[in-house]
């Protein structure tokens, strides 16, 4: 294409008026510009907009935050030794189903205003990605841990597309692994973190594409291998919680395998049976 044939030989005002018409909906006037417009335009679905608005309101004015939408663990307890007083005496509980984990979380209580304000301030100052990074090294019991979790929730609500949300859930699962590492190394109970870890993996898999599920599976396998690796290295009192984390991860691995298989089956009705590794418990390190 030469300048003489295309936009370059057109008067900029005439082009501008034609583009006004394209933007107003006259697609026939400049089909190529309409094609570009179609490729660039994004919409925010109503359902997503509602969540997004609620998160923005909550960040702008924590007093408006709904306890159901943004439960916040009590950071005073998180910072106090009472959180893990009986790690050695704590009996091995059954694996906590994900649905129960969610219900339990809803009941944890109203968010603490100061934490949300600080999280919102970090969002405004650094952007949500950096806000997450700023407190990334904290773990339960640290002063900024509540801020970290609050900013994670806000960041999640700010994500609009299911793919973006899934990617962040997977990132958060990896964060929980880091925290599990840190707490377990200190001999602390990681049961709650194990449940959070499993819930993040579960959320990452919801509505994910086959390709994304493959990535989640790959990461989950790596997490399981890592947890098995450190199982024998952590103090005795942390091992039960760690085992629970491994059990949860293995259950999630199986669920993700099943989801991926279902997604593939829907895409290829004539495809043969399951592909990929069959899920199964690996030998524990102990």
């Amino acid at each position: 294409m030469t300048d003489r044939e295309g936009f370059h030989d057109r008067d900029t005002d005439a082009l501008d008026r034609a583009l006004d018409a394209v933007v107003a909906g006259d697609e026939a006037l400049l089909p190529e510009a309409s094609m570009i417009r179609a490729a660039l335009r994004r919409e925010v679905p109503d359902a997503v907009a509602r969540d997004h608005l609620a998160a923005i309101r909550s960040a702008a004015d924590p007093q408006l935050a709904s306890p159901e939408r943004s439960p916040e663990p009590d950071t005073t307890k998180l910072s106090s030794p009472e959180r893990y007083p009986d790690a050695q005496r704590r009996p091995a509980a059954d694996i906590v189903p994900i649905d129960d984990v969610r219900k339990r979380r809803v009941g944890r209580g109203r968010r603490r205003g100061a934490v949300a304000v600080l999280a919102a301030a970090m969002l405004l100052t650094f952007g949500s990605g950096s806000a997450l990074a700023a407190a990334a090294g904290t773990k339960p019991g640290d002063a900024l841990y509540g801020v970290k979790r609050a900013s994670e929730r806000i960041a999640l609500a700010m994500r609009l597309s299911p793919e973006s949300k899934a990617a962040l859930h997977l990132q958060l699962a990896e964060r929980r692994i880091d925290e599990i590492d840190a707490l377990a190394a200190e001999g602390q109970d990681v049961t709650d973190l194990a449940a959070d870890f499993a819930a993040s993996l579960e959320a990452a898999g919801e509505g994910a594409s086959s390709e994304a599920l493959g990535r989640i599976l790959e990461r989950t396998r790596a997490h399981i291998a890592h947890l098995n690796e450190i199982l024998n290295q952590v103090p005795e009192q942390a091992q039960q919680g760690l085992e629970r984390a491994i059990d949860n991860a293995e259950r999630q691995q199986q669920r993700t395998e099943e989801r991926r298989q279902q997604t593939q089956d829907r895409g290829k009705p004539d495809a043969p049976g399951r592909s990929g590794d069959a899920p199964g418990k690996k030998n524990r390190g102990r």
Partner: protein
Amino acid sequence: MSGGVDPAAALGRVLAGDRNGFEDLYRVYAGPLLSFLATQVRRTEDAEDLVGQVFLEAMRGIDRFEGDAAAFRAWLFRIGRDRATDLGRRQSRRPEEPLEAAGDAPAEQGTEEQALAALERRRVWEAVAALPDAQREVIALRLGSGLSSGEIAEVVGKDVNAIKALQHRALGNLAKTLGKQMPQIPPTSGPSPYPPAVPRRLEG
């Protein structure tokens, strides 16, 4: 999702103290903002985060805002532009994710026609991503967000003729990249609402 919402009325409610008016403003401007920001940052999720930040910042700063709906829209886009620039200082500014990230990838169960359309959109997206910064910004605001050249001039702080020249060059570059024969622009009637373009060397 902006159907039926009057941004001037919504802004009037917000300025009168009814914060619920923000919901309507969000419905009008979130999509256009997302369309713009997705071309300005590396990852789609960053653009989504930024949309939230823009409205958060606007909600917190509305008491200091003075002006009409057009000024409010320009303010929103300026906030978005500034935040994208901030983010760009820490990251490469080029959008690198194709349309999968925006949920526009060919559906696994989609028809061949849908898949081809998605591929075409991806080609366009990549061509836009490869434009010089100033051209990419203008074309995203013009065609992605639907702003007029006068409105874009307000957002980016340039003369309206500079905007028209940038969009002219951007579309020419896109035509070359995409191998398209751009159509002849139909003759227009009446004088241009804008002053004649001033020939000068422009950025980008």
